[in-house]
């Protein structure tokens, strides 16, 4: 155990593991969702850099192996017609995917390119968009923007279906520059107009019929029909345009090619990635390093992420446990840890509701700007939701993840004094850094129990209850609510 001064957590930060284990646990939390102790051990065995490479190549892991079971038992998650069904489906992915960074990137892009069910009335269209993020989320940024521009949900969300050669609609062109790539102040109104004209004709199949259905929330007679991209050359403005200092008869692809070469784009995307994966507090030097990598690799997101994960600023103590878990991270990650929902259970809809109650309706962000993150995830109301939801997962000692934690705690010794019990539980949860105040609280909980004994069969059930109580208090701690 080591103690260091720490402004993040309190007067003293107590470290219960070696520095490599601490770094890897941090990596797995940020690049995924609350790793289990076994996953941390496996990563430690293969080393930090090898773990980074594994995370960066999700295609080398199998895709969701229970997808058929989900669709069989949740018929509603086969059609994905309803928002709550679709939210449950994403939680299954978060809990069960062996490609954690793929899911984390999907959440990141979903927050940045926020597209909401509320206007579309078509949940599967938004799910399909998240599949695009899974497919391209670690690829070239130009490909991401191209797929986004062709994505039916985005075309509907920002009205590009209404962007015609003779009557341009600037909504998508504006947000493409302002929110999706460069940030305000780096382009002119004329650039917005030129971008919009370049994307005329980028629409969806059966525009009128699909628009009528969406506007009146009609799923009749036989459910939603998936939207498809369609390019209408006869509705495209192929005249000359001037965009960000370049002149030509641009189409949407040309606009994207110009955007990704802008230094503002590199800095904007680097800043967004830093904010999501590293810290809520901007560090211009670190963001500059990521922006340089973006520019050097012509927008290769995998390269930028590698640069981030291998940088000292990513694992520095000042950022570890310094980021509030989003509701989806908290709920999905805790379910992973507890081992719940590894196979289809109807209660997945309750987990989805928990995420909603905490302020994050995945697939239905509040505005095109996405969610306000960081400390804004926490208020007096949803803090109670967060603690209750996490505690409920740890309460059921029959869950395989909870059982694995209990078995690991038991292996620490037949008789555990209060502090030993607290430290063994923290270790079994992969929480190697806590404040002295938190540890004191855990020890105080266990103090009235005296020694918890596992060597007497008649006391085993009681001992397991003690561990469960300890786990529930730990997941309520500041350190667990952070990542």
């Amino acid at each position, binding site marked *: 155990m080591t103690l260091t001064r720490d402004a993040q957590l309190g007067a003293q930060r107590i470290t219960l593991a070696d520095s490599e284990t601490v770094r890897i646990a941090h990596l797995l939390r940020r690049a995924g969702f609350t790793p289990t102790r076994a996953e941390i051990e496996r990563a430690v065995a293969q080393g930090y850099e090898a773990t980074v490479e594994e995370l960066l190549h999700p295609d080398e892991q199998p895709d969701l192996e229970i997808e*058929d*079971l989900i*669709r*069989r*038992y*949740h*018929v*509603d*998650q*086969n*059609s994905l*017609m*309803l928002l*709550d*069904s679709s939210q*449950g489906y994403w939680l299954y992915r978060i809990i069960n995917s062996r490609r954690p960074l793929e899911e984390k990137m999907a959440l990141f892009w979903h927050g940045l390119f926020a597209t909401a069910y509320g206007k579309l009335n078509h949940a*599967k269209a938004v799910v399909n968009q998240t*599949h695009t993020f899974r*497919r391209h989320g670690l690829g070239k940024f130009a490909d991401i923007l191209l797929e986004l521009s062709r994505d039916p949900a985005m075309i509907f969300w920002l009205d590009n279906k209404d962007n015609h050669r003779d009557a341009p609609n600037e909504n998508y062109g504006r947000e493409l520059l302002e929110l999706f790539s460069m940030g305000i102040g780096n382009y002119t109104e004329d650039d917005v107009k030129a971008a919009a004209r370049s994307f005329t004709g980028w629409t969806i*199949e*059966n525009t*009128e*019929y*699909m628009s*009528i*259905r969406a506007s*009146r929330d*009609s*799923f*009749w*007679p*036989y*459910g*939603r*029909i*998936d939207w*498809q991209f369609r390019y209408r050359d006869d509705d495209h403005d192929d005249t000359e345009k001037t965009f960000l200092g370049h002149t030509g008869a641009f189409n949407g692809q040309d606009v994207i090619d110009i955007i990704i070469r802008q230094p503002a784009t590199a800095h904007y995307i680097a800043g967004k990635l830093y904010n999501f994966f590293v810290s809520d507090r901007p560090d211009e030097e670190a963001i500059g390093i990521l922006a340089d990598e973006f520019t050097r690799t012509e927008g290769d997101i995998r390269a930028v992420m590698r640069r981030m994960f291998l940088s000292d600023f990513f694992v520095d103590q000042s950022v570890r446990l310094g980021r509030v878990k989003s509701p989806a991270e908290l709920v999905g990650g805790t379910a992973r840890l507890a081992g719940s929902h590894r196979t289809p259970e*109807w*209660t*997945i*809809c309750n987990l*989805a*509701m928990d995420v909603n109650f905490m302020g994050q309706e995945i697939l239905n962000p509040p505005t095109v700007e996405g969610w306000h993150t960081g400390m804004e995830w926490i208020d007096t109301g949803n803090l109670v939701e967060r603690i209750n939801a996490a505690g409920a997962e740890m309460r059921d000692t029959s869950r395989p993840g909870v059982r694995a934690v209990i078995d690991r705690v038991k292996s620490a010794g037949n008789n555990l004094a209060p502090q030993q019990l607290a430290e063994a539980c923290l270790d079994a949860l992969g929480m190697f850094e806590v404040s002295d105040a938190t540890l004191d609280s855990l020890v105080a909980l266990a103090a009235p129990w005296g020694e918890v004994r596992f060597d007497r069969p008649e006391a085993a059930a009681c001992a397991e209850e003690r561990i469960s109580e300890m786990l529930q208090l730990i997941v309520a701690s500041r350190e667990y609510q952070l990542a």
Partner: protein
Amino acid sequence: MTTAAATASFAYSHTVGFLAYRGRGFIHPIDLALGDDGVMYVLNRGGPESVGRLEHKRVCVCTVDEGYVGEWGTGGIEDGQFWWASGIARAADGRLYVTDEALQRINIFDPDGVFLRYWGEVGDEPGQINRPAAITVAPDGTLLITDGLNHRVQRFTTEGEYLDGWGEFGAQAGQFNTPWGLCCDAEGNVLVADWRNDRVQAFTSSGRFVGQWGTSGEGKGQLSRPSSVAVDGDGYIYVADWGNERVQIFAPDGEVAAVLHGDATTSAWAEDYLAANPDESRARREANLVPAVNPWRDHHRETSARVEARFWGPTSINVDAQGRIYVVDSCRHRVQVYRKNV
């Protein structure tokens, strides 16, 4: 579409259904039972299981010629209520049996849908169940169910008394991986959709393995997660090839007699809706409802999501004595009816 075979052809007839949370229509139907005079008892699984959606779980009673008779049942955990209703079968006396994979029950209803009682004890001992999926009535009047997570078939009396069973987890002959649909032929031989083994297995009435159809894949004669199986009096075997979003029909000699992908048209109930919404109806007529598609992921399913007429999640197939074939099209909230012509 009409698909010719050596001795029989199979032609699309019409579609029954309309998306409705209550009343005249279906919401994620999963199975149906056939009654007398063309009556269908369509079991709606609904979902997800949030409070406001529980009333979607019900049995809609209608006729093959699109008459609406009524509905009964609702979602919940009380006696006679449904949570994950999965299979429905009708006995000779008109009583209806409904399996529930979440509540782990087999419910018994009288012919009018009045709940009588249920049985079901969770476990893996003989007579116990773990996610009972499909149910069928054997020619001798006994009930057969697929015991999904116990990977076996079990037989009960109509009062729920355990008789016998067979199967265990595995991929060898006579073993199962999460079986789903099942049916009997006139002699009592049993066909089982061995869902996660991508095959259909045949057994004698006493459970002795006879043969199997299908290997994993999307080619002709191959299967992907078959959900349901039916057999007619001529020995044709009908398989809901769920993962391939199609139906395959095997002739008595084992050859593929037909492959159906779905041909849905607007039902009478759908026509009523469109007549009441002329602007939507006009736009629909002018739309291309069979667009060219090329999804990059999960090709069959995503194509079905884009082309409304195709099967999407066919969970159940039945055939009646008149040669009518009923395909429960779960993600499209309807039943597509075909006809066999000899």
